């Protein structure tokens, strides 16, 4: 029983790490621009697809393909901000949401057109499995978890310790005051979208290596990402980290001990319960 619980916790950590990265991307965009960036999942998958394409058809080593895909993903994220979100910046937040839905369809369509409808798996060649007593951990999972932690720490350092990071926080907290500090509020959204998309693409690559990329996977991820945000508190970085880990493990435990058919239902019910007890989320600020 104990072994099973431990194994399930480890099972949940990998997907939890992916949730954290997706949610961090969503939460930065939301915190700074107030946009529910629904297309984030599809754009993340675009990055994953691209890595696959470069690593297979173009014969690049995976480690070389990743930076190229990251760069392309960042470019796409920035384009999306400039071309689609910026025009609706000052409109009702519903409009930005609808734009996000439209973008999701477009990016999904582009992914299908460019990469087809067959699922793809990014080849890593990492198939060793570590065993600790009764617990098994595939090396790929371990690397994914470690990479997720490294990325999260790197982002925290960037936001807390660099001038640009502080400017991003300042814009999130008070846009007008940030202008008065001399922050260029037209470039900040670009940086934010770039950073958020980079995290998303990293998550997309992890999904592509650990699992697979296929039509519709991105949309499923972004819904979970939003569930994480609600669980942890919209706009809160620590909330996204805690929420993502909690959701990943909850799903794993729910599937293993309650019902695999209803594991998503259980995950959403947990989210709704948290919301009822703490409407601002686990680590959100009180209104």
């Amino acid at each position: 029983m104990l072994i099973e619980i431990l194994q399930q916790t480890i099972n949940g950590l990998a997907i939890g790490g992916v949730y954290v990265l997706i949610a961090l991307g969503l939460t930065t965009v939301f915190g700074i621009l107030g946009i529910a960036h629904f297309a984030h999942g599809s754009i993340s998958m675009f990055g994953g697809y691209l890595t696959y394409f470069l690593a297979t058809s173009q014969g690049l080593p995976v480690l070389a393909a990743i930076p190229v895909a990251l760069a392309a993903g960042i470019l796409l994220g920035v384009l999306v901000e400039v071309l689609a979100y910026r025009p609706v910046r000052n409109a009702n937040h519903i409009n930005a949401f609808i734009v996000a839905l439209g973008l999701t369809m477009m990016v999904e369509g582009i992914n299908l057109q460019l990469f087809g409808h067959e699922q793809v798996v990014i080849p890593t060649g990492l198939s060793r499995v570590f065993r600790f007593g009764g617990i098994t951990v595939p090396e790929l999972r371990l690397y994914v978890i470690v990479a997720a932690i490294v990325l999260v720490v790197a982002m925290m350092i960037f936001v807390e310790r660099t001038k640009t990071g502080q400017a991003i926080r300042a814009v999130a907290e008070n846009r007008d005051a940030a202008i008065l500090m001399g922050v260029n509020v037209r470039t900040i959204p670009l940086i934010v979208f770039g950073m958020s998309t980079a995290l998303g693409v990293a998550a997309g690559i992890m999904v592509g290596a650990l699992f697979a990329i296929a039509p519709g996977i991105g949309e499923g991820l972004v819904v979970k990402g939003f569930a994480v945000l609600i669980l942890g508190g919209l706009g809160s970085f620590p909330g996204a980290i805690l929420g993502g880990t909690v959701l990943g493990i909850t799903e794993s435990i729910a599937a293993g001990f309650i019902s695999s058919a209803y594991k998503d239902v259980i995950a959403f019910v947990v989210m709704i319960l948290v919301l009822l007890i703490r409407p601002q989320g686990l680590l959100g600020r009180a209104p």
Partner: protein
Amino acid sequence: MSKHKFTRACAALALTLVAGSSLAAEKKLTVGVADALTGGGAVYGLPQANAVKMAAEEINAAGGIKVGADTYKIDVIAYDDKANPTEATNAVRKLIDRDGVKYILGFCCSGSTSAVASFIGNEKAVMLVGNAAERSITTKKIPNLVRTRPPADYTGQAAGTFIARKGQKRIAVLGALDVGFYAQYVDSVEREIKKAGGEIIAREVFSLKDRDMTPQLTKIRGLNPDAILVVGYVEPAAFVYRQAVELGMNIPRYGFTSGSEEQFLRVTTSEQMEGVWDLRPTELTLLSASKNGIAYHANYTKKYNASPSPSSPYAYDQLYALKAAIEAAGTVDNTDAVAKALRNLAVPPQVVMQYQPVDGKMFDVNGQAYTSNGAFQWQKGKWVFVEDLPSDSKAYSQFLSTLN
């Protein structure tokens, strides 16, 4: 009658004959395809649509369909139904109402197929279902509907017998059990295993978009089963095989996934797959295929620059069956007669799949065709045909007739 009038009548008759015969040479029969051409179902739908188009070209090149004195060249219109019930209804309504099409082929996916099947009985049209495996499509005895692919539980019965014979008693199932026909397959397996004194100790579920099966597998590992049975679409199922190995489960693995080597090797290594059984209809697999199958594979690959999906000949065979039925009925307009002729059809020589006729007919009274089932095993990077599964199409046909 005056002479004048008589000459005029003769001239008119001659003109009619001439016109008629000249028309006969140019007659066209439009058939429709409703199938998933985009979206998730396109993996199955698109090759089916391609297969119908290829069959049409072959038939046209060989002289078309002959009905009495007339020869019909086939024209294919294909609409996308996105594997969505509403879209499928719209597509078929458009084919019938607007394009005046009477023969509709394709249908890869169960939901959209069931939606169309629910109203096709009231239409002057004939519907030929391909890859969609949901059993209830042919339990309603719709007179103008036939299906080339057998229901999943027909195969499940054979698979159950096979597993029981291997001697494992406690079987854990992991599959897309939220999908009707997969659940039916498992029910059939369970019935056969129980007969041999075994049992199914777990029925865990994954959904189409799940890729992480470790929670379910960890639970199953804790139950210590003798064997595991994996049923579901190949995309998620491949992960079950890989992750079971990663979790250190060294028990026999049976499956019903119909995935190709290429599809599995995207996800797993060949070593991870070694020894896995796939218990399924004998579809287009080169080693088991007939001469027709090899030719089909070659022609399709040449024409579309991609391998045909294993289930795509279900659609290819539809058009040859339709051609034979129309020629037997001697009409393209009377769909009732064509539907009746389909039910009385012997297996046409050009078909790819290895059908097991019931009472000498390709389609039974329910409009259902049966192919043979086979046990395939992954050996050194390839699916190897090991043996035919004991399948009794006649008995199953009788069972199917009792359902509604």
